[in-house]
């Protein structure tokens, strides 16, 4: 315990420089590697030129890196203190885009902040994880068994999920619920409760299906039989599978992907960037990238295990799951494993919003790592 005390003492008085050295640089390097993969792929997607995608990707990543490292050094106790404020802020943004979208006359999911576009639904997931982690931080096993204790966090999940679903963005809404579920699971919610919820979903899903938008229904039906509409909704899946399959074991070579370069591949710079990589670098390249991404996720779980406080652990699990879901849904989508939904592959795909929010998330994750030994029962700065 002496060691622990000393750590806390050191932590309390830790200077900016000391914190800076505690940043997990290996992980930062890993992220740079992932971003570099993105640069290469976007260079190819741009027709073998840094413009219009790769250059901007690098600049955004550089900006994101500064944001991420800054957040990494923010005291974890500060983050916990403002967790619910952040949550309210996120919901506010969602309401804002909802109202703005209604005025604009369409599905508006973006907020322009100067040159950057922010998708509140992306940011919301991180804010939700922080809020839930804060809620369960000091929950005892007994309290976890109390359904009333679980009600507020359930509502906290339901509000943003409903708002995102209304946008309408079915995919992101489901992901939000799943992230919340992951935090619930890690926090120790009884397993039978999960079983109950899954059973309820099984019953309610067909009813919900009737209330889906036509394009959302189309996504599900074309998923089940993509070849039924080869020029319409199934086109993306078929072309993506052709691109992947024709890549073979070793790929067609950098800049040699015919499917991507001839525009058979839709949205190759965003949602289908992984296809582009797999076409040009084959199974070997695809699995290497997948391994890199798995390492990023694994780091999240590493932080969860080494953290000495429940807030940090739940935070890490939630944020790791967030990135995992991006990766899984995106790759599963391009391989035709699950229905098509506009989910990017952050740090690799072109697009600022997902990258920025993901890096904000990693910033929080790194803060949890930097402050893994912090005593959260004491306020920041006081003893």
């Amino acid at each position, binding site marked *: 315990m002496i060691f622990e005390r000393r750590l806390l003492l050191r932590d309390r008085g830790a200077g900016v420089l000391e914190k800076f050295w505690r940043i997990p640089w290996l992980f930062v390097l890993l992220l740079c590697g992932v971003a570099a993969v993105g640069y290469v792929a976007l260079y190819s997607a741009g027709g073998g030129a840094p413009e219009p995608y790769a250059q901007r990707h690098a600049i955004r990543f550089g900006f994101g890196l500064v944001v991420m490292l800054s957040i990494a050094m923010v005291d974890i106790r500060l983050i916990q203190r403002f967790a619910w404020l952040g949550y309210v802020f996120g919901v506010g943004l969602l309401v804002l885009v909802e109202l703005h979208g209604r005025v604009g006359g369409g599905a508006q999911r973006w907020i322009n902040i100067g040159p950057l576009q922010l998708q509140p639904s992306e940011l919301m997931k991180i804010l939700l994880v922080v809020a839930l982690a804060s809620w369960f931080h000091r929950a005892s*096993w007994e309290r976890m068994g109390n359904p009333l204790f679980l009600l507020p966090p359930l509502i906290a999940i339901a509000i943003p999920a409903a708002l995102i679903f209304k946008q309408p963005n079915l995919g992101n809404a489901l992901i939000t619920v799943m992230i919340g579920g992951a935090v619930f699971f890690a926090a120790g919610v009884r397993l039978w409760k999960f079983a109950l919820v899954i059973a309820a979903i099984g019953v309610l899903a067909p009813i919900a299906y009737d209330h889906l938008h036509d394009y959302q229904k189309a996504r599900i039906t074309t998923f089940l039989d993509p070849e039924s509409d080869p020029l319409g909704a199934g086109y993306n899946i078929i072309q993506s599978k052709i691109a992947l399959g*024709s890549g073979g074991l070793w790929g067609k070579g950098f800049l040699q992907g015919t499917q991507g370069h001839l525009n058979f591949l839709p949205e190759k710079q965003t949602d289908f960037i992984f296809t582009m990589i797999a076409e040009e670098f084959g199974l070997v390249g695809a699995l290497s990238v997948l391994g890199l991404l798995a390492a990023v996720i694994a780091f999240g*779980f590493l932080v969860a295990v080494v953290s000495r406080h429940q807030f940090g652990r739940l935070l890490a699990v939630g944020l790791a799951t967030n990135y995992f879901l991006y990766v899984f849904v995106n790759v599963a989508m391009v391989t035709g494993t699950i229905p098509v939904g506009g989910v990017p592959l952050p740090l690799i795909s072109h697009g600022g919003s997902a990258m920025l929010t993901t890096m904000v998330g990693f910033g929080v994750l790194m803060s949890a790592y930097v402050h893994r030994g912090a005593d959260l029962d004491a306020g920041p700065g006081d003893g």
Partner: protein
Amino acid sequence: MSRRQREEERARGIFTRRALVLGAAQMGLLGVLAHRLHRLQVEEGERYATLAEENRLSARLLAPPRGRVLDREGRIVAANQLNWRALLVAEQTADVGATLETFSRIVPLTEQERARVERDVRRRRRFVPVVVREFLTWEEMARIEMNAPDLPGVSVDVGTTRIYPEAEHLAHVVGYVAPPSERDMDGDPLLELPGIRVGRAGVERHHDRILRGRAGTVQLEVNAVGRVIRELDRREGVQGDDVQISIDTELQKAVRAKIQDGTSVVLMDARNGEVLALGTQPSFDPNIFNSGVSAAQWRQWTANRATPLINKPTNGLYAPGSTFKMVVALAALEARATTFGERVHCPGHMDLGRTRFHCWNRYGHGGMDMRTALKVSCDVYFYEMAKRIGIDRIAAMARRFGLGVPLDIELPGTKAGLMPTREWRLGQGRPWALGDTVVHGIGQGFYQLTPLSLATMTARLATGRAVQPHLTRAIGGRPVRGIRAEDWPSLGIPATHLRMMREAMWAVVNEQGGTARTSRLPSELGVQMAGKTGTTQVRRVSREQRERGFRVDQLPREWRPHALFVGFAPHDDPVFACAVVVEHGTSGSGAAAPLARDVLAEAFKRLRPVPGGLGPRVAEATPR
């Protein structure tokens, strides 16, 4: 350890377990994706690789230029002309109907045109361009290009179309081209190309495969909307060979200028069978077929009683009349039924049972030997010869001269004609009567012969060789077989017999009393022609008419006899052979012989015979 610490330890234990489960589950799911990638990229990779190739590759056909048709002097009689046209590629537009609708707002299309385009789109593969409109003007082209964004799949390109500079003068020889119909689809992918034409008549049809050439292919890399990114592979087609024909255009035009509706003139090189001129009137302009014949034009052609679409030298059928008498004489000589010197008495008629067969000279010719009988065209002499040898020997001899048998000319649809025999008559359910034989002895009766076959007969009489009439001199600059006289086999008729025929035919034209005495060649040419006149009744002359002093020139035109003449020149070293049929020309000596004389005189003036042929042997293949 405090209670709080125990709590914390417990919570941490639960958390660690669950975090590991969650992490393991996530890694497991990523493993599922890895497996899925393996299946797609390695196990099914080959299948998808093929699909990707199909995606990006688009094969297109390249139309080679159609070979030209040249006359014997190398003058162009069929060539290609640039033709700007609008094409539609069905696979590049979502809705063909909508695109056509937009197109017709820019360049009006008739209902028929739209229906044709839609039919073509259905019939052809979706990447094969279909012609929407041909012969675009500059203004129409500009309008289409300007509206290109609204016309997906529509492009303007330049193709070629056939042009016949000599128009109607060679229409029946060169023929014409038209878009291929379902029947023409012979598996040649070239025929699927937009704007392609196939030969429909004449040399264009006979040599269609040669003129057409072979399609080239170009492998294009295309993107998702079908735009061509680059060419991957190009295999040039083989352009169609030029075909040189034996007709002399200038001579042909001069011949046609001399004739009227219903007249046929065939002028051949007697030594090798090359057709030098093939005159018929009226004719048509083959260029009209290129852009499609209108219903009104078609009605006009078919309603014309002078039948402009029918080539009378090859498709008109006539009885040969007295021009046939040499065949009867040769058959009688071969059968040893007579000799050159035997005299047959002509009292002006011959009686057979109760039927009297008249000679054209009602007062009779008196004693006739073969030479004189031919010269004055005595009918009774040939009644007698026919009676002696029978129709089958006559028919057999006639066939050796190319009469009533298919000829090898490159004009599809040429009629073989009919050479009557006993067997043929029995096939009609009637026995052959002796009276029939007698009538057939003077070239009247059931005969149906083309002017071309009469010219062939004349050429064979003149040379003793079984020359076939033909039009092709060279293909792709290489001469075809048959230019030299030695290429043709001998007829196997004794030279003395043939000499007698030529001698008698010379007398017809050049001796006092010959039936074509007035049609000698002008003396300044320094050559003489030999020939034989013929007049064939189209209506039977009744005894009553005959006794009343019947005069043919009082008959309505369509009841007057046809006038025929066959001849060759020079008489002692034949170069030209010709046959003339003047429908309702009344008399061979009056209408046909003078025309033949004019045609031969023209031929001598224009084509100075040189040893081994006429004019340049083969036109140089001039660069296009």
